[in-house]
């Protein structure tokens, strides 16, 4: 209980620090949301028109007062209104979150599941065909730009082959390609992580003993290495999970998915302060949650870490 309380206190302090940092950095950005909005709306930049928006958005108050007011409202569930759309930010996030979560978590889930057999097969025969395939996928995920691959997939599957209707088909049809694309960018690296975790165990004395008892490498890996390798695998999944919320901007833009990341990109251009601050806080809370979940999972897999 004391342990949990300490973790909660640490997380709260960290989130508070993030809120100050995010507020300061975002307000230091070299552009004025009031001027951007006036130009976008074709409204003359007069002192009166500027003053109207500044007052409406609370930007005429001292920074410390702005921060205090924003934090108080944010914690109370009032995230303010978007400068750009004039809509409540919390409801915008809640509407968009299912899209981002589906393609982010869905893609990562597919990758996390497929990476296990891929990494296992690669570890069974290092230097074999599957090992090379997992390496190619890993390198491909690093070097192929997401927007390029996304457009190529659209062109091939939707334009040339007409196999899919990614924009006006059903929800599953619309989210299939972006989900698979997100999965593609994780499967190779996760497969390599799992392979390496397994291979690290093959040099252990207990594993050699298992082989000496006549077990095949596949059986020995399955019986004696899998659980140990999963420990490292879960640790590697944690940072992958971190970017799932809000890290899929390119995929959302290319496939016209109305998710959080797309909202973020449009808000950056408009210097939509409240949206940007809310986004940073959402990502920070998400990372804290994932970190906590990772600690629990690792404790379940390895009793030594429970203390």
């Amino acid at each position: 209980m004391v342990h949990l309380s300490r973790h909660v206190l640490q997380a709260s302090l960290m989130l508070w620090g993030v809120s100050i940092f995010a507020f300061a950095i975002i307000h230091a950005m070299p552009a004025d949301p009031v001027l951007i909005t006036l130009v976008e709306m074709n409204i003359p930049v007069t002192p009166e028109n500027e003053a109207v928006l500044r007052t409406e958005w609370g930007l005429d108050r001292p920074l410390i007062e702005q921060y205090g007011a924003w934090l108080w409202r944010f914690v109370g569930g009032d995230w303010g209104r978007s400068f750009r759309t004039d809509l409540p930010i919390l409801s915008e996030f809640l509407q968009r979150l299912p899209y981002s979560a589906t393609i982010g978590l869905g893609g990562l889930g597919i990758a996390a599941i497929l990476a296990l057999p891929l990494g296992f097969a690669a570890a069974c025969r290092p230097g074999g065909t599957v090992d090379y395939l997992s390496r190619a996928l890993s390198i491909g995920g690093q070097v192929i730009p997401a927007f390029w691959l996304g457009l190529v997939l659209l062109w091939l599957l939707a334009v040339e082959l007409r196999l899919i209707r990614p924009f006006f088909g059903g929800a599953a049809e619309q989210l299939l390609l972006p989900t698979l694309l997100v999965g593609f960018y994780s499967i190779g690296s996760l497969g390599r992580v799992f392979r390496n975790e397994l291979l690290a165990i093959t040099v252990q004395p207990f594993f050699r003993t298992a082989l000496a008892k006549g077990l095949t490498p596949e059986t020995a890996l399955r019986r004696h290495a899998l659980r140990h390798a999963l420990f490292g695998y879960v640790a590697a999944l944690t940072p992958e999970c971190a970017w799932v919320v809000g890290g899929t901007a390119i995929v959302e833009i290319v496939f016209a998915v109305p998710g959080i990341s797309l909202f973020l990109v449009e808000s950056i251009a408009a210097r939509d302060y409240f949206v940007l601050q809310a986004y940073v806080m959402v990502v920070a809370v998400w990372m804290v949650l994932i970190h906590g979940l990772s600690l629990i999972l690792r404790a379940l897999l390895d009793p030594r870490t429970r203390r």
Partner: protein
Amino acid sequence: MTRRLFLAVALLATVCMFTSTGHTADRPTINVGKTFIASSLDPGEGSVGWALTTHGVSENLYSVDRQGKLVPNLAQSVTTVDDHTFRVDLASGRRFSDGSPVNAKAVANALVRTNELNGRARATAGKMTAKAIDDLTVEIKTEKAVPLPTALLAEWAMVIYKAEGDEFVFTGPYRVKKVGPGEAMTLEPNRHYADADERPNIRLRKFSDPQTLALALEAGELDIAFGLPVEALSRIKARDDVVVKSFQVAYQYMMFINTERPLLGDPAVRRAVDRAVDRRQLAHAVNGGTPATGAYSSYFPFALREPRPFDPDMAKALLEKAGWKNGSDGVRERGGQRLSLVLYAYPQRPDLLTFQPVIKSMLAKVGIDVETRVTENIAALGKSGDFDLALWATNTAPSGEPSYFLNAFLRQGTGYNHSRYKSERFGAVVDRMTTTGDPAERAKLASDAHAVLFEDVPVSFLLTPDWHVGLSKRLSGYEPWGSDYYIIRPDLRVTE
């Protein structure tokens, strides 16, 4: 008896169901892709009024027609009482999409509500009050003087609607059937608008990336793709199953010349810059557009007809006469000072970035050195005045009348006067525009104002861009016009 009554009611209900849904069931549905979509249905919020008008959902009392003329829409006429007061006579027989009549009370409520809630609606007239004089007459009072009320009523924020709690009812040819999921809308014809049965249903979707928009058209998923990227045009035009239509818009590309900079204080240098720019090359660089004749797109009745001249020899002569002699590296000098200028553009308008090297090359040919820079926030740069030349794109006649641009961008002391232009002669001409509502007289005054501008050159008008719309074969009869204001219109028909 009870059974017979039940059967009769059931039969009647079945007949009613078939008669009421019969047209809808047969009605085709078209898919429309745009780079923007209304974020809500409340015109009191942000730019919702404009977005809903582009969707064919909302309308104004006045609008701008295909020829660029201000024409009555829900209104019949406007009578000016004094500088701050005018009366609007409404057209009779117009209805909201729920069937209720568009009357003076509803119009007054809509205008006052938007004016109170939406700061953008107070930009021209300040605070506004409105009251119904009779069923079809509204009297409107404004905080600021409004010389041309019809233009005010055509502004994008001034749409007419009924607010009933969280529900909003509009008057346009379409009504919103469903919002979402995501950034999408389903529209159906407004049954209380003329020729409703001839219009298709619409599924509307936002595309943030123009390349994706183009691919969606090529995939056969879109019937209208509004805002195709220039680089995809040749590929799409080669297809048999789609049609591309390009049209001139009310936006203008221009270059502000900072009259307070030491090198540009001399009008001769500004005139040289203006003469050295070949607008046809600029059009070629961005694959379309028309060399500018002045501040307005040439389809407006008050636009000038002659393209701005390209005369590099004249430009050189002007610079020579002003004392700028060719230096050893081809850049002109005077008293040891090089004729070197900084030209800004902003990434939100990619065409302007394309212009930068082309203009640099043109000005180099007459001996002017140009350093190109990009800024994220052109408005802040304009306000600071820390530039020599700044490329700009704007809709110069958003409500179909010529004084808006001249007043907002070139009058001394106004917010957009990035050139820091000061001219009593120009101010006097523009002032006279506020005293007349006669279109011919206003066009003449706009021409007079241009004559002063061409002499002083605080701004160089460059190009009227073309926008491109991709259409499926069954929408090939659609003709785009009106920039991004009137995209889904009453005349939308499926032709095949």
